[in-house]
């Protein structure tokens, strides 16, 4: 088997050399380019978090200056949101798998796909350059008029970096939508698509509809900063709250850009490791779309105490509760998928278990924030910090890690060491909870976020959080090491080690450049895990 892996031509050995990678239009290679880049940004963003948690061990601001601390949390947010979480699942797994799952040779526009990576790299270089030039201290939210007038840091450079990262996601979204519409294999009707594809379709809609708005907001901030054109600064006749509307009109849906693809990953993993078709397939698919649509109508819940009218607050609160329902529906369907399944505890499934638990907590605490009278108290405290880390790290990053392990044999043709995988999934889960659960308590106690120094009574919970962060950091370093190790020394995986359904598993591992030797013909719905799938009945 070892020999055949080397002899057979596939996308990794078809050509060698740096040029063959930097000029590739193969979606699989571009996925790996993205994987390498965002891993770098993840560890840069993580390093900023480590310094923040070290500072917060003591109540006094003694490790770094207030100015440095403010730059640390800003750069942490910018790196993680714009350069890691937003591209995480779609640009790596999505890029690799969307064409393979629909039986296509590549994305619809392979060169635009490569362009999106270069645009992303350009944005990333600006972002890192801004960090190197002293950093930026506005918070990743760039609230005006602080960002447009008062801050003395590299605001424009960072904002332009984020602008380019956003532009690259528009290109990716466009590519996915056209590909999913036009390039499905014969017989692959919409309701035969894997839920991973539905999730990416919904995500792509948000990318192309929402991202231009934040791009506009960023440009306006830059115009005001550079040319003193009054848009947000009241001294120039502007309105600072306008910025918040523009910013959250994109940035709330952006949360769904980050979580929907992760939900797609979870659907695939739970089905495969329970050997069951995803329960309520159509409901899960439509839940993705309804999250994408309603997600555009809830931005005002970030602004309940911003001076927005109380009636607007009520409408946004109502709509925010509505968006909770399709998320709950998904969780229930994944649980039902496990019912009477044949569940195995491989690493991807452990991450999926982690996702289900943490996403549940993140989702339920989101209800606290949608509840007007309670949000007044917990808004801008550590409660919200804990909540969105449960969604973004407990949800998205768990699913991302699960997905990377799940498709690693397909991507590299080799297996990762299973025992290490399970061990680090457990470490991540424990470290995560120790880091972020105490922050819910801190938040209700009233500790505001973005505080460099804090009153002494908050110290115990902060020390717990910092201790958890160190465990979490180790949990992320271990996979980094064994995954790289496995690329050379891992056992050859075979084409389908998990005996998964799905077109991507029907071809060899690693796949040939053209993905399939001949175009597959699809005759049945996805997830045909049960042996007598045709005889399966729909229970009413």
């Amino acid at each position, binding site marked *: 088997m070892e020999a055949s892996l080397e002899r057979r031509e596939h996308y990794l050995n078809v050509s060698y050399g740096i040029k063959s990678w930097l000029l590739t239009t193969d979606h699989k290679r571009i996925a790996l380019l993205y994987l390498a880049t965002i891993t770098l940004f993840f560890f840069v963003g993580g390093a900023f978090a480590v310094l923040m948690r070290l500072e917060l061990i003591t109540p006094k601001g003694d490790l770094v200056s207030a100015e440095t601390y403010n730059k640390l949390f800003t750069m942490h947010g910018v790196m993680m949101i714009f350069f890691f979480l937003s591209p995480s699942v779609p640009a790596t797994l999505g890029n690799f798998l969307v064409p393979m799952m629909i039986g296509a040779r590549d994305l619809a526009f392979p060169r635009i796909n490569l362009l999106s990576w270069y645009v992303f790299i350009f944005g990333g270089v600006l972002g890192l350059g801004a960090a190197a030039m002293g950093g930026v201290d506005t918070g990743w939210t760039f609230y005006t008029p602080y960002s447009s007038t008062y801050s003395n840091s590299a605001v424009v450079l960072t904002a332009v970096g984020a602008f380019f990262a956003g532009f690259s996601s528009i290109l990716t979204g466009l590519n996915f939508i056209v590909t999913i519409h036009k390039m499905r294999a014969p017989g692959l009707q919409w309701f035969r698509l894997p839920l991973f594809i539905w999730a990416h379709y919904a995500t792509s809609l948000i990318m192309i509809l929402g991202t231009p708005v934040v791009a506009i907001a960023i440009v306006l901030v830059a115009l005001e900063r550079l040319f003193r054109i009054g848009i947000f600064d009241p001294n120039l006749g502007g309105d600072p709250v306008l910025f918040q509307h523009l910013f959250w009109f994109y940035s709330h849906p952006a949360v769904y850009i980050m979580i929907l693809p992760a939900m797609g990953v979870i659907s695939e993993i739970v089905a495969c490791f329970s050997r069951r078709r995803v329960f309520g397939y159509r409901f899960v698919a439509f839940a993705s779309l309804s999250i994408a649509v309603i997600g555009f109508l809830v931005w005002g819940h970030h602004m309940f105490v911003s001076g927005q009218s109380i009636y607007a607050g009520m409408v946004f609160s109502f709509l925010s509760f509505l968006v909770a329902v399709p998320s709950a529906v998904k969780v229930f369907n994944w*649980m039902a998928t496990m019912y009477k399944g044949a569940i195995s505890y491989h690493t991807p499934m452990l991450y999926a278990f982690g996702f289900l638990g943490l996403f549940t907590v993140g989702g339920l605490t989101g209800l606290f924030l949608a509840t007007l009278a309670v949000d007044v108290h917990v808004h801008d405290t550590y409660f919200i910090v804990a909540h969105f880390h449960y969604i973004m790290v407990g949800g998205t990053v768990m699913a991302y890690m699960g997905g990377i392990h799940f498709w690693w044999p397909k991507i590299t043709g080799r297996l990762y060491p299973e025992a290490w995988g399970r061990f680090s999934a457990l470490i991540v889960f424990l470290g995560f909870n120790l880091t972020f659960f105490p922050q819910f308590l801190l938040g209700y106690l009233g500790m*505001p976020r973005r505080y460099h120094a804090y009153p002494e009574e908050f110290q115990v919970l902060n020390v717990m959080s910092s201790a958890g962060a160190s465990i979490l950091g180790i949990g992320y370093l271990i996979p980094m090491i064994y995954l790289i190790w496995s690329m050379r020394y891992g056992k050859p995986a075979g084409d389908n080690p998990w005996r998964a359904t799905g077109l991507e598993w029907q071809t060899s591992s690693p796949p040939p450049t053209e993905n399939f030797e001949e175009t597959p013909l699809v005759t049945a719905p996805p997830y045909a895990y049960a042996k007598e799938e045709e005889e399966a009945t*729909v229970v009413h």
Partner: protein
Amino acid sequence: MWTDFPLFPERASTIAGGVDRLYFFLVAVGALFSIAIFITIFVFALRYRRRHEDQAAVPFHGSTTLEIVWSVIPLLITMVMFGWGASLYFQNSRAPDGAIEIYVVAKQWMWKLQHPEGAREINELHVPVGRPVRLIMTSQDVIHSFYIPAFRIKNDVLPNRFTTAWFEATKTGRYHLFCAEYCGTQHSGMGGSVVVMEPAEYEQWLSGGPVGESLAVAGERLFRRLGCTNCHSPETKGRTRGPLLGGLFGKPVPLLDGRIVTADEAYLRESILNPRAKVVAGYAPEMPTFQGQVTEENLVELIAYIKSLRR
């Protein structure tokens, strides 16, 4: 570090109890659902674990009934949360009549607090227990947020605009005052405390401090100095070039364009800084702007003066 280790915030205002009750309801629902989900996942994972490699699952595809049940139940529960949260928010947003009005001017990185009687404080607010206090807030620079966790109140403080908040303290003591909206380098240092005192003690504090003139008196002096008297009269009757200010505050004002607005703090503020935005019916739009000639604190004084002309 280990001696003082609270897990729940102090409850020291009339609204805190209601907010906490709703919070406990949310915690109960959240705990119930998450524990139920965790146990189900755990039980399924154990009970349906794969015992041999080729084990097949029981095929079972979906159930419309179940989907409806688990959509409608969460929907109903969230609607209870919505209704309860919104009605409490609505009640909490209106200050009771007869509140002490304190002006808050925020700037990087301090809170300036002005009592109607003239006492001024920085980063420390003295208030009596058992009396509603209404805060009329504005910022001199960026957006800040006035937050007193023990009272469960928070509201952003915006430049060039008034926002309001109110509370009625129920327990004497000293409580944290935080800035909750990130505002620059010393954001975490922009705090202080609220000192809640017995009413008698408060009176003593008010009279004991360095007594400045009251806001309204300072405002009147400014009103004359800026020449406002040339066109505006503090009377309720008579004909002057500009609208009469006596008894104006809180009344509906008919505008030139047919709209009717209420003469609140925001209206007065706008009319001083941008007089042509809302011109009163029957008057010519000829008042000059005072933008740049008055500071935030001047505005507070002028408005306090106009408010004092209640007849």
